[in-house]
């Protein structure tokens, strides 16, 4: 009975997955904060022990301290996605602060990938800021968008300028649902542009925190004219991939007390 661990240290959230006897036995999530190492330690505190693999923006920061191997998030997602959805050939990940598209070969190896990690446009952060600008929680923001009868397009792609644009649009009396839908559609369009830089082959997996947003999923499906599958817990795909890779190549044991 092998236990392995995977950590996905993103710029906004850190996810932990513990994998044991072919199943996920524990998942934990926390905000990255300004001290990702401390957050990792908290997540690992009294979790089962075993070989650990880390990925994400913070992976090199913690490598020495947590005695773990690191892999790129592309690899982590490729492996995790196939575990969650074995027939998937294309992965779209919209995370807190970056987005990526990965296309896989038939046997699950990485074929092409494209990342946007230079700009928050079209990321989870963008959605958060827009929701706040509309005075809504993320859940209500999605609900309003889904209830909209029409869509009011937004022009700015820069997060900061889009926020100003939304505020001035509200001031002009445009209905909130229409603005909310317009925002979702703008992000969907960007996501599809990113996907078009790799090859789009079904089945398509939608991962990352933004995949929890049903409206986003629907708008991407509309734009792609194809079905897109969002797993029950889309945020842990990367961490799951890490835990699976740790199982295949157990290198270092996570040590207690550091």
């Amino acid at each position, binding site marked *: 009975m092998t236990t392995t661990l995977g950590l996905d240290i993103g710029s906004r959230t850190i996810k932990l997955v513990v994998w044991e006897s072919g199943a996920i036995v524990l998942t934990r999530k926390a905000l990255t904060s300004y001290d990702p190492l401390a957050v990792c330690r908290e997540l690992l505190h009294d979790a089962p022990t075993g070989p650990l693999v880390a990925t994400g923006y913070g992976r090199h920061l913690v490598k020495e301290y947590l005695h773990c191997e690191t892999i790129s998030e592309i690899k982590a997602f490729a492996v995790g996605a196939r575990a969650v959805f074995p027939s998937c050939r294309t992965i779209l990940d919209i995370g807190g602060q970056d987005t990526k598209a990965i296309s896989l070969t038939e046997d699950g190896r990485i074929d092409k990938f494209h990342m946007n990690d230079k700009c928050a446009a079209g990321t989870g952060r963008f959605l958060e800021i827009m929701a706040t600008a509309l005075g809504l929680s993320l859940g209500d923001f999605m609900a309003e968008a889904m209830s909209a009868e029409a869509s009011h397009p937004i022009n*700015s*792609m820069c997060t900061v300028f889009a926020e100003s644009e939304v505020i001035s649009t509200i001031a002009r009396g445009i209905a909130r649902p229409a603005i909310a839908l317009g925002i979702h559609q703008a992000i969907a369009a960007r996501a*599809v*542009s990113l996907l*078009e*830089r790799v090859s789009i082959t079904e089945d398509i997996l939608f991962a990352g925190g933004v995949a929890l947003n049903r409206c986003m999923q629907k708008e991407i499906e509309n734009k792609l004219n194809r079905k897109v599958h969002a797993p029950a817990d889309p945020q842990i795909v990367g961490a799951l991939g890490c835990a699976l890779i740790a199982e295949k190549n157990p290198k270092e044991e996570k040590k207690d007390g550091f």
Partner: protein
Amino acid sequence: MTVFNIPGPLINDRYKSDQVGRFLDYILKRREEGTPVVGLYCGYAPVELIRAMGAVPVSLCASSQRTIPAAEAVLPANLCPLIKSSFGFIRTSTCLFYELSEAVIGETTCDGKKKMFELISHLKPTHVMDLPQLPDEEDVRERWTEMVRKLKIFLETTFQAEIAADRLESEIKETNKKCRLIDGFFDYAALHPPPLNWQELYDVIGLDAVTNSGELQSLMAGITSTLDERVAAGICFGSPASPRVLVSGCPIGGDASKVLKIIEEAGGVIVALEACSGMKGYSIRIDEGTGDPLRAVAEATLKIPCSCMTPNRSRLEMLDEMIARFKPDVVIDVVLHACHAYNVESYKITKHVQDRHALPSLKIETDYSDGDVEQIRTRVEALFDSL
């Protein structure tokens, strides 16, 4: 900004201000008559050769934001919108004129276009002309004439037709007649204040592609008489105090004409359009009766002051002429996003109009989206405020 009850529209045919409709019907009609269609992107392609062969030249679609996302699946996002749009039209098969074209002519004007042509050259017979980049070199006219000669061979081979010297000479005379008519029409833009707006300038320029000199002459009679009416009635566009604007730089069409709209909304009147989409080509005359019409045509197109030329002295000369003729109060240099040649050259343009003509200028870097409309507006208003 005052808008009066203006006699018009300028063009008194059944299309009136529907420029696109007029052009579309014209091409379809020619096609029905069996006339082959040759697509082009740029003023350097000598249209007289195409006409002398009995074909009709068409400018291929290049100014819509709509086709850009499709282009960006292959082309980099950081590229001129004109190139992305053109490629996007082809990729989505939505440029009717490209679909109708039986051959396409390209030139090595700028890097982006040059490399984009490589990606479409397998779709239709495509001929790329190697454009010399140093217009002051002594053998440049010789080299370009050779390129035009090769174009002739390509056209004759592709269409199994002949381009006879005497027909070419007739087309030269035709072009010159039309250019004189249109160039003469620009005199109205030089009036203080002008009796027409930029849309009308574009509409009349658009007649070049769909008329012969006879047809243009009769239409022009109606145009000038309408404009004379306006002038006689004291009707003008804007007011005597409106800032007169010379718009220079990259070709402005379709979605990029947002800049022209913004200039007018901010209270300016556009009195001169320097770019290839405007007045640039109409002051150039092709030498007639030289005995070597091919060379004459080649030498004429080489006079186009595009920023791909180095150094582009002719552009400064043309600006001097236009400033003297149209007496603008400001110069606005429109540079399409990622257009390196016009962007780097803009520095010289700014200095020149300032030092030589004491005119304030503004560079606007933009693309086809409407995300930057308010930022452009702020800059234009600030420019006018500074007068």
